[in-house]
């Protein structure tokens, strides 16, 4: 009898370190979705009460910060939800077009009307176009539209947070009978790991890559929410969230990845214009390209350090479909 606990302890000690999917969900992602819901509710209240840019600035920035900390997640309830929270990239200028059309006619006045008006006129990117537009007047129709968009955004965020509570339960119940989405705990871990890598790719290829444009031709107007100063703050907040998620998921410390994250943040902090509107300047472009390389180096570090620790591999059919 006495040897049993001892044997058990030995077994536990011998077991390989386990990825902590539950910790990643409970300590990072679920609080992140809750914070996003709280931040957008505060923004909606602020917009309903006072439409001046001064009153909206802080809650607007807080909503973006909260969003980019969870917006890189593309699985579960996020898969169908992200596009109408931040409609970006928007190569055809659909948001600007939708905004012009809305203001020329009878703009949506309630959250429901915004929700029915199409993804381009919803969410944070629509708020960037409204609040950052040249003709913004706190007493004009733009103000009422901003309040309606903010109310719809808060409703979306609340629904997303609620749906994630359910999906997190499904991930934690990986391997249980009837759970076809996650057959094993490793599959749930793999799903989160994939989101990490996708988030770093999005940061490097889209958030920085789109305004960098082609060699010799910067495209600053393609930067995300540049009218309201969000490009570099979004990158900073996303990297911070990705690092938290990586550490929560990892069975042990990630020294190489931590160093890579720190270097990426330093490179981003060196960018002179947080809106990325100076990329036609060769020096600014060089610094932005260096930051992009640093973000890609984070991806390489995580692939080398965390991937093997979790024992996961990327998808087969999902990578290049046919």
């Amino acid at each position, binding site marked *: 009898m006495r040897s049993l606990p001892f044997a058990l302890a030995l077994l536990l000690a011998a077991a390989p370190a386990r990825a902590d999917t539950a910790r990643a969900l409970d300590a990072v992602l679920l609080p992140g979705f809750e914070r996003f819901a709280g931040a957008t509710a505060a923004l909606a209240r602020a917009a309903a009460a006072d439409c001046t840019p001064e009153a909206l600035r802080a809650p607007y920035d807080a909503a973006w910060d909260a969003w980019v900390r969870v917006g890189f997640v*593309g*699985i*579960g309830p996020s*898969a*169908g*939800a*992200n*596009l109408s929270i931040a*409609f970006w*990239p*928007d*190569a*055809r200028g*659909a948001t600007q077009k939708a905004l012009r059309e809305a203001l020329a006619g009878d703009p949506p006045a309630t959250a429901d009307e915004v929700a029915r008006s*199409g*993804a*381009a006129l919803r969410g944070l990117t629509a708020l960037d176009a409204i609040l950052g537009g040249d003709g913004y007047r706190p007493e004009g129709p733009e103000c009422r539209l901003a309040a309606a968009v903010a109310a719809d955004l808060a409703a979306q965020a609340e629904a997303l947070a609620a749906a994630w509570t359910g*999906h997190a339960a*499904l991930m934690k119940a990986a391997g249980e009978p*009837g759970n*076809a*989405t996650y*057959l094993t705990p490793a*599959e749930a871990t*793999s*799903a989160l790991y*994939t989101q990490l890598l996708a988030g770093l790719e999005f940061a490097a290829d889209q958030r920085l890559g789109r305004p960098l444009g082609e060699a010799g031709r910067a495209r600053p107007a393609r930067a995300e929410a540049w009218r309201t100063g969000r490009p570099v703050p979004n990158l900073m907040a996303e990297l911070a969230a990705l690092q938290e998620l990586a550490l929560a998921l990892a069975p042990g410390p990630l020294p190489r990845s931590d160093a890579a994250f720190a270097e990426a943040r330093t490179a981003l902090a060196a960018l002179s214009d947080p809106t990325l509107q100076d990329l036609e300047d060769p020096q600014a472009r060089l610094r932005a390209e260096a930051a992009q390389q640093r973000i890609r180096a984070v991806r390489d570090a995580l692939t080398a350090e965390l991937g093997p620790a979790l024992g996961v591999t990327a*998808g*087969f*059919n*999902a990578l*290049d*479909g*046919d």
Partner: protein
Amino acid sequence: MPTRRAFLATLAATGSLPALGWADAGSPAWLSCAREADGGFALFGLRADGALAFRQPLPTRGHAGARHPLRPEAVIFARRPGAWALVLDAATGAVAARLAPPAGHQFNGHGAFLQGGALLVTSEQLAETSEGRLGLWAADEGYQRIGDLPSGGIGPHEIRALADGTLVIANGGIATDPTDRTKLNIPDMRPNLAFADAEGRLRAVLEPAPEARQASIRHLAELPDGRIAAAMQWEGEGPPPPLLALARPDGGLAPVAAPEALWPALQGYIGSVAAAGDRIAISSPRGGRMAALATDGRLLVDLARADACGLAAAGAGAFLVTDGSGALFRVGDGPPLLLARHPCAWDNHVVPVG
């Protein structure tokens, strides 16, 4: 009076002929290509319970295939741009013939038998221009190449023999680089759904509405009422339009009215489509999702499953779903049933042979 050939084709299409000889290959219900744990590629026969019936090594990554309607024989195609197709004789387990596209042509991963199995048609494109061709092979005469005909568009992908003995062609509309898969004409792409007669001659071409022209029509299934379910992948910017349409040769392409949030949840990408009775299953390996729909767009099943792609009917109203982690599910009305899990990554498509 129907010809013997047409009679046999009808019999085969209705599935009333026994699958003679497939028993020698372990009685598979389906075939699927896969990548194995060592990185190599193989074709597997899958039994109805998910067990492996046979394994046949492949030279490179495979894609889809076509079962001969009468003989225990199937043709397996390389993934595009494809340089090979293998004719598998199920009775002997041997590769009965190896097909290569003519110079300047590429196989596009799919094919179908017409004329009761006398004619194999391969989905092909000219490497230089991506112009679609239907490769014609005399299946009854050692798979001799006998010519080719226009597919009616650029970059054809799946082609499928219909119960009435004709052919439906998904002309994806995407021109690709001659040497790889780089897309060259996304702003101007013009996909269509084309129909050819039993000789492979074009009879009708259906074009999508202008707002859906950047939705490449790529995969096909036939419903019991003769309608075609055409599944697409969105190449445009912004939210995708409906990516599943129902069509008849003499009608138009009617988008299926599924819940609007489904298409972005599929990441604008359907990788495979199958019909079981009047239910349609679609899969998105990019969205990690499989869904079954009624023809009116009602969502009957919505399953989140990473890298799910291969689909086939598995009894009344149920589907086999395969994924990149080696799992095989039967998905019907109840909870999904895990049939088996094998140490391989199942490729995009499942070919019914049982």
